[in-house]
């Protein structure tokens, strides 16, 4: 097995993944390899299946066909049922942080508790240690002074940053971002950008769904363009954004680039 | 309401409807019993129309005091305290307390033997009052909502003895012969059962008393006793 060569195992592997909702086939055989410490962006039009792909990676959506591997370990396990699958997937998910498009903060917990709940309960981290870690993370996203505030009182961007801090608190191997920066202003995008770079240096792997081409181009090591449930094209950001091979990609990007000139 | 008003309307009488043989519903749903017949006999003598209805015990007192009913002909004991609140007619029978134990009990033969025992009585009845006032820490009182419950409590061993008016228990014994027996523990008080009416209605009181005398005199009373209590029984 390839797990012997730790450093060479890709962090995430997506192999021929299919997913349907009723009659609608949303993912039609997706393949993607994400190497350790890399940042991969997924772009594509609305409804193309980006969120569904991301949710499949940590099995919030059970896929119909194909394989997903995290660090060489298979994530989807059609052979495991019930409790056995539960135990397996909970363990896996602790290594994958996810930031949702709609944030999904826990409204009954203060900001700091949102961040520290998982390390306290899942890793049995001491309350004070967790608090320190949480404050550090909140500080990193510029929200230290909102620690005791409840999510309902936060602005959109503030919520999003709390969601990022919450996902980071488990010190996962991979971070999955679903439009993680859409509610952030440029200064913060820059901030998050720096945070991500820092994480990448600490060998954090990141899979990012985004609509902000500029951000995607800036931050990522590899980019993938999806449409209608299939991968249209992938490559380095430089290549994909400046000189795409596919007509479809060009069309999509031209709209965007048109915005700025 | 006093008599004159009742004459224009109906004489409203209440009982508990769950106290055989004095008042109960038969399997056809009719409210019958000793108290009901007495009420009807009295009304006839008084020359008024009567309507007998039933209400749970804790509603009865409110019903009487609240004035929705004119009289409670419901085997009510005439006691000192109650006379503060309502008026009583002359007694229309006299009820005796009795003590009952399980068939195989032999260590309860006097009131002194109640010591340390669990004694049952029906909440709100005179037996209950007697047991509460005389317990003085010697025995534990346990109460029930009605005679059927209490007999059940006695046969299942929730209580060691029960205190109840004798007639209803005797009648119940005839009906379904549970394994219990009466013990003579000596002196237990007897209370006169009387009709209660609201205070300050002298006309009604007088009419009821004279009607009572009449039915006792002309034999109607004894006929009713024969019918419900037993041939030739004397409960005066």
């Amino acid at each position, binding site marked *: 097995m390839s797990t012997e060569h730790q450093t060479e195992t890709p962090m995430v592997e997506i192999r021929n993944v299919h997913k349907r909702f009723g009659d609608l086939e949303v993912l039609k055989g997706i393949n993607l390899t994400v190497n350790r410490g890399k940042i991969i962006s997924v772009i594509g039009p609305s409804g193309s299946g980006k969120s569904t792909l991301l949710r499949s990676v940590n099995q919030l959506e059970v896929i119909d066909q194909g394989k997903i591997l995290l660090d060489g370990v298979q994530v989807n396990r059609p052979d495991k049922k019930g409790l056995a699958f539960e*135990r397996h997937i909970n363990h896996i998910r602790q290594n994958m*942080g996810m930031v*949702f498009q709609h944030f999904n903060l826990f*409204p*009954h917990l203060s900001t700091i508790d949102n961040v520290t709940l998982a390390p306290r309960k899942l890793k049995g981290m001491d309350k004070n240690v967790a608090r320190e870690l949480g404050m550090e993370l909140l500080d990193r996203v510029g929200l230290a002074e909102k620690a005791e505030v409840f999510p309902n009182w936060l602005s959109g961007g503030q919520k999003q940053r709390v969601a990022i801090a919450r996902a980071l608190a*488990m010190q996962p191997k991979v971070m999955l971002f679903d439009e993680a920066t859409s509610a952030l202003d440029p200064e913060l995008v820059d901030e998050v950008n720096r945070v991500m770079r820092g994480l990448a240096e600490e060998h954090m792997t990141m899979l990012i769904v985004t609509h902000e081409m500029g951000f995607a181009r800036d931050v990522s090591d590899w980019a993938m363009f999806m449409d209608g449930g299939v991968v249209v094209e992938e490559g380095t950001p430089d290549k994909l954004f400046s000189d795409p091979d596919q007509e479809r990609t060009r069309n999509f990007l031209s709209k965007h680039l048109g915005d700025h000139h | 309401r006093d008599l004159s008003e009742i004459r224009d309307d109906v004489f409203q009488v209440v009982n508990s409807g769950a106290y055989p043989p004095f008042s109960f519903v038969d399997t056809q749903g009719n409210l019958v019993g000793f108290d009901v017949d007495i009420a009807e006999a009295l009304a006839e003598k008084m020359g008024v129309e009567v309507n007998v209805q039933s209400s749970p*015990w804790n509603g009865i007192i409110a019903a009487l005091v609240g004035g929705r009913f004119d009289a409670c002909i419901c085997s009510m004991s005439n006691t000192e305290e109650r006379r503060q*609140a*309502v008026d009583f007619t002359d007694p229309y029978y006299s009820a005796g307390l009795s003590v009952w134990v399980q068939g195989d009990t032999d260590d309860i033969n006097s009131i002194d033997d109640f010591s340390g025992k669990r004694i049952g009585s029906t909440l709100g009845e005179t037996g209950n009052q007697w047991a509460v006032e005389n317990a003085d820490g010697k025995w534990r009182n346990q109460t029930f909502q009605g005679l059927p*419950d209490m007999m059940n409590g006695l046969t299942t061993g929730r209580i060691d003895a029960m205190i109840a008016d004798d007639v209803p228990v005797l009648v119940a014994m005839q009906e379904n012969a549970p394994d219990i027996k009466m013990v003579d523990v000596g002196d237990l008080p007897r209370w006169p059962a009387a009709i209660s009416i609201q205070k300050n209605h002298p006309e009604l009181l007088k009419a009821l008393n004279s009607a009572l005398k009449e039915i006792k005199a002309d034999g109607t009373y004894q006929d009713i006793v024969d019918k419900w209590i037993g041939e030739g029984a004397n409960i005066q």
Partner: protein
Amino acid sequence: MEFDFGPVITYFPTLLKGLGVGSLVALVVAFMSIVGGLVVAVISIYINKVLSWPLRFFIWLFMTTPLLLQLYFLYFGLGEWILIPAILVGILGLGFHYMAYNADIFIATIKSVSDGQYEASRSLGFGHGATIFYIIVPQAFIRAIPQLGNNMILMVKDTSVLSAIGVAEVVYASQYAISVTFRPFEFFIVIAMLYYLINIFMELGQAWLERQTAYRR
């Protein structure tokens, strides 16, 4: 009608003692029925059907039959085999009864907590059970507070049913006193006031809880 509250004063200590007994029962029952109701709701929503079937039957049984009958059954019906003390019968009967009611409320509020919350928690690595415990239940509980308050306020007054099996709570105490003194209205008015006193505390408690949780919705 003339009122004479003299007798009430005589029997007031007994009434207070009855109130104490009733409150004690109510406290235990509140705890039991809320925790139990939550457990029943969680099991019947989340855990597999095999377990949930008897539970649904349990809910069904306690919801469909009157409390009084349940008490009679536990007190007299089981009397042939086991003699449960009256106060325990009362606690069990009331407890299971309101457990069934509360479970029904929790079922609705648990279902109303959005799927997004469940997913967010699962994606952090919380298991099914932990998600329910840390995320779903607290939010469902917050939403259930007004209805739970309602049920518990009803329950406090239902403790009077226990007088039927001889538990000396306040209605019981008054029933005895009324049959001795024949002052029903005076006693009922005083009982109503005593209950109202308890109710004020419960409403204050509920309002406090609602205020504390208003911004946590």
